[in-house]
């Protein structure tokens, strides 16, 4: 278990929030854990089939893992070591299903009232009405059946039903996947309000990274049933643990290199030799640029590494009139915080409001930068244009190459 994970989970463990540990091989391999404090929103992120929903079902009590432990608000919901396994009814968990799972034969009001069966009938209906108003479902819709409600309205009913139990934990399974943009904005607002009002952990399962970064305080990246990394979205984005995590959080620029060791005369910095991918290119490492990047003190000098550069650490500039002083060469990078390299646009695909660009680096054969440009960083570029790129070296994150999951980048 990595130190930062322990720290991350530890922070959550102090607060009366959620702690999950799961380990199983069958029927689906799951490994790892995550945590979330009360009032925090944790996004469980990963590609389809990664096991996010399975993890969620374990937390909700719908499936029982081979071994695991779930503690919410100090109460033990599941502990296979001691044989404790509360059924879903006893857990007081609010679960909003991906396809809402509303009872088709009951009105919206009765659907919410279903979660309130302990109360007498009259009180049940008034509480249900209260919750429906809370999620801003118009009163004339309360008596309608789900079939005649829109997707967004159905989701609000599902949320109201989940909240009616006054749960100790709120789980949302891909809540935005089936919703149109307009309703989505409304739901973002609803979610923000809930975070503020409820003092419970909220877990959001999603494969949409952008949403996770937008809404979540913390993120847990899952792939093939394994929790790869936990932390705040920025932290993961800036410092992915390995190449797989880097891929999953959408870091497109991943390169090979060798860590040469601390940079003399520049405390806190070390030399990273940028190496070509594959057999093509100069075999002589000295011909390749050396970058002075942040030294986090974790990597043994001389070891091969993988390093990533987030898109926002790359700036596009007009090509310098004369030969760039930052032409590749030994020591050319000096001690500056940025490095400037000439680049040529290999392809530029314009899609609505974004541009997907691939830039070749002539000084570094076989290497290219992939960028998604949007908003102010967008330029009218076309294939064949010559530009300069300025790399912010503080954005470079270096990972040891022998870590499992450090596969060569896909072509």
């Amino acid at each position, binding site marked *: 278990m990595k130190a930062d994970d322990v720290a991350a989970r530890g922070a959550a463990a102090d607060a009366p929030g959620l702690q999950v540990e799961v380990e199983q091989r069958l029927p689906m391999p799951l490994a790892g854990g995550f945590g979330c404090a009360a009032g925090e929103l944790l996004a469980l992120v990963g590609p389809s089939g990664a096991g996010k929903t399975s993890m969620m079902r374990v937390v909700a009590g719908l499936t029982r893992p081979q071994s695991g432990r779930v503690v919410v608000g100090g109460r033990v919901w599941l502990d296979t070591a001691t044989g404790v396994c509360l059924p879903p009814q006893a857990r007081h968990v609010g679960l909003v299903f991906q396809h809402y799972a509303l009872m088709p034969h*009951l009105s919206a009001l*009765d659907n919410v009232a279903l979660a309130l069966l302990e109360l007498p009938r009259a009180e049940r209906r008034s509480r249900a009405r209260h919750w429906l108003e809370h999620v801003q479902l118009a*009163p004339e819709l*309360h*008596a*309608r*059946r789900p079939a005649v409600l829109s997707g967004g309205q159905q989701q609000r009913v599902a949320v109201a039903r989940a909240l009616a139990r006054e749960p100790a934990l709120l789980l949302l399974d891909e809540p935005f996947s089936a919703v149109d943009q307009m309703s989505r904005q409304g739901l973002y607002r609803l979610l923000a309000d809930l975070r503020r009002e409820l003092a419970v952990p909220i877990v959001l399962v999603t494969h949409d990274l952008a949403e996770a970064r937008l809404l979540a305080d913390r993120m847990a990246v899952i792939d093939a049933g394994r929790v790869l990394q936990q932390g705040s979205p920025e932290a993961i984005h800036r410092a992915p643990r390995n190449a797989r995590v880097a891929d999953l959080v959408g870091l497109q620029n991943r390169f090979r290199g060798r860590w040469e060791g601390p940079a003399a005369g520049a405390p806190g910095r070390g030399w990273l030799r940028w190496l070509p991918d594959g057999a093509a290119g100069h075999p002589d490492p000295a011909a390749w640029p050396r970058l002075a990047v942040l030294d986090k003190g974790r990597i043994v000098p001389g070891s091969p590494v993988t390093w990533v550069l987030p898109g926002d650490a790359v700036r596009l500039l007009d090509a310098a009139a004369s030969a760039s002083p930052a032409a590749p060469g030994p020591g050319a990078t000096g001690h500056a915080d940025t490095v400037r390299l000439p680049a040529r646009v290999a392809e530029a695909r314009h899609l609505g409001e974004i541009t997907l660009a691939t830039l070749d680096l002539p000084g570094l054969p076989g290497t290219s930068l992939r960028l998604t440009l949007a908003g102010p960083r967008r330029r009218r570029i076309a294939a064949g244009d010559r530009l300069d790129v300025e790399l912010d070296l503080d954005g470079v994150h270096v990972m040891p190459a022998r870590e499992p999951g450090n596969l060569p980048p896909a072509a």
Partner: protein
Amino acid sequence: MIERGRAPVASSGELLPRSAARRRLLRQALATAAAVAAPGLRAQTPAATVAAASDLKFALEEIAADFERAGGARLRLVFGSSGNLSSQILQGAPFHLFLSADEAFVFRLADAGRTVDRGRLYAVGRIGLLVPQGSPLRPDGTLQDLRAAIADGRLRRFAIANPAHAPYGMRAREALQHAGLWDALQPHLVLGENVSQAAQFATAGAVQGGLVAHSIALAPAVARQVRFDLVPAHWHRPLRQRMALLRGAPAAARDFHDHLATPSAQAALARHGFEIPHPPARE
């Protein structure tokens, strides 16, 4: 409680006015039906069950009605082929008195210990050729016309009771064998489960005729639509019809058993085409 703006769709547990009315209607209908059926249910349950060969259908119904009118108990009558009925008795059927069309079945039951004694001969039956209205066959008991009809193609189908378990069917086969017609008739035969069904087949339309019990041909319901001629009695083994009380039979069954020996019952049997053994022999 009706809320303002609520759509006219009932949520679970609440009735629309229409359904409520329908339910009331249904309840009333059921109550009426029960009242109608009740008399049938409350009627006096029969005191004994009599199993009789189906050739006795019309005769026995008359005799049992007389018996009841004369102060006797109410009886339940079950008809079928003698073979079927004796098989059912062996299987435990709740019959009290068995009137067989063939004494062999009674002896078999007696040997199996099911009867009180070896029974009493109550009648001798006869078979004959039954020809429905409009049939190309002639009611000729010597079966000459039948022979001709087979040859010239007038005959397509001919009904008899199943010889495997119906005495009247067995006798029909014997008579046909005697007349040398059995083999020729094979492809045309229609077998009734009992002689009553054979007669019904014979009058059903697609069948040109059959060999059935005299007693059935005499029944008013049948007689008006058929012509009939007896087959010579010596062409087959006699239909010695024997009856026996079964073990555990109640008094009512015993009474009826005795009643069948009375002159009035005997006269009824004679009217229905049976020959009465004089005096009622006990063997």
